[in-house]
Every structure is written in C-alpha cells, then in structure tokens.
C-alpha cells in the first residue's frame, strides 16, 4: 500500500506530518526524507500523526527514532499521535514508549 504523507503547518509553532498506510523497509525512506527536509527547512516542533498507519515495523520505527534524534540535536522535538494497539505494541516491545511522547489526539499533542 502506498505511503501517504501530508504536512500541515496551520498550528504554529507545530508542524504536523500526517502519515498514512504501511511504514516498512520499502516506504520508510520516504518518511526519512520528509523529516530531514522539514528539519533543514527550520521546523523544530514536529508531531507525527500515526493514526492512519496500518502497519509499522522496526524500519519505520528506526526512521522515527532517527527523526527524534535529529530534532533533539537541533533543540527541537518529535512527538507522536497514536491510539492504535498494533502500532503502539511495536513501541512497547522495543521499549521506545518511554522515549517518545505519545498522545491520543492531535489536540493533546498540540497542547503539549
């Protein structure tokens, strides 16, 4: 399934990247490129909305970790929006639930 990426800048200072579809070894490089581009354009407070992600594996997870690292080293942050059990499970198993701030709604993430 095609990966959908949509960047929403209507909630400054936050930039929301809405991710849809399957995030695996095939599609994850596109998300990596998008995150790198956003950081290079000066976006620092990123929120990745994963509600539309139907599948996430460790390659997708690695891209999110890479994005978080890149932002933190630039005085920024990457938080996530996700309520889907099958996606949250991947964060749980790998112990990354404690590394990312994960909100249930975009409103909560924007409030943070």
């Amino acid at each position: 399934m095609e990966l959908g990426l949509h960047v929403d800048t209507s909630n400054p200072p936050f930039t929301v990247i809405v991710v849809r579809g399957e995030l695996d070894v095939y599609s994850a490089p596109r998300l990596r490129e998008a995150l790198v581009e956003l950081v290079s354009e000066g976006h620092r407070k990123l929120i990745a909305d994963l509600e539309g992600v139907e599948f996430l594996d460790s390659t997708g997870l690695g891209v999110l970790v890479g994005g978080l690292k890149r932002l933190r080293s630039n005085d920024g942050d990457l938080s996530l929006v996700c309520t889907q059990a099958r996606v949250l499970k991947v964060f749980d198993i790998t112990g990354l639930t404690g590394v990312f701030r994960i909100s249930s709604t975009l409103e909560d993430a924007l409030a943070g």
Partner: protein
Amino acid sequence: MALVAAGTKSVELSVPSRSEYVAVVRLVVASLATGTRNLAADRIDDLKLAVSEACTNAIEANRKAGLDAPVIASCWEAPERLEVCIADSGTGFEPSTLSAHPEVSDPERLNFERGLGIPLIRSLVDDLRFESTPQGTKVWMTMFGGPDSGDATTEIVRTVVERD
C-alpha cells in the same frame, strides 16, 4: 544440523530481494494464517510483523553478500502449529553474538535505530529458531494454535447441545 519442520509445506514463495516485495510476503503469510488457522486477529498482526522483520533482514543479508538471490518464504502447517521459514543466501550470522540494546533511560539508546528486528520477532512468535551457515540463513518462526483448537471449542458446544 538442519532443522526439521513440523507438518507439511503448503506454500513456498520466492521473491526478488527488493524492499517492495516484503509487503507481498507478509500479506501472503497473513492470508494463509487467517484462512486456515484459528488465530486471533492480534496474533495475525504479530505474525505479519515478524515476517516483515525476517524478510527485511533476509534482503539485507543478500545485499551485503552482493548476491542477486531471491528470498524464499515457506509455510508449514501442522494440526497445532504454523511454521514460517524465511531463507536468504547471505553469509550467515551467529545469533548468540547479537548485542543487547542499552536501556531506554540511557541516551545511547537513541543510537540504535537498527537491529531491533530479531528482538521484535522473538517477542512476537511462539518459537524462533535460526539455521545459519556461510551459505545462508533460515529463520523459523512458529505460531501455535490451529484448526484443532477451533474444533475443540466446537466439540464442547456439540457435547453441551447433545446433552440438552
């Protein structure tokens, strides 16, 4: 020593070592598991994820070895289990040499963007075995539960109905 699978091989799929085929393999395995096994939906999701991780590693192993070899996925069905084998033609690895990741509280943890695949597979499937030689690696993943457990429930229901 070669590992012997339980059951009968029902599906064998050979795909090019390219990332776009990982989705094909996980969908075929998930369809088989959904259609023939009595597994809960979240267990099917676990299997899909485990297959995705194993295929990603297999593609990487072939690439590192500089080989244009396919990734072979095979499914073996026994009454109480489904076994999925993902095979590559890479140079092999020693599972016991896999290093542990730092704790989440350790800032170093963020340097581990990769290498999460095998720990993930281990926690997702009921049994995981490796058969690795310098000619390639086979990753055997087992999910317990099958038509039999479903039949057992049916049997109980039938007994209750007949008794009434």
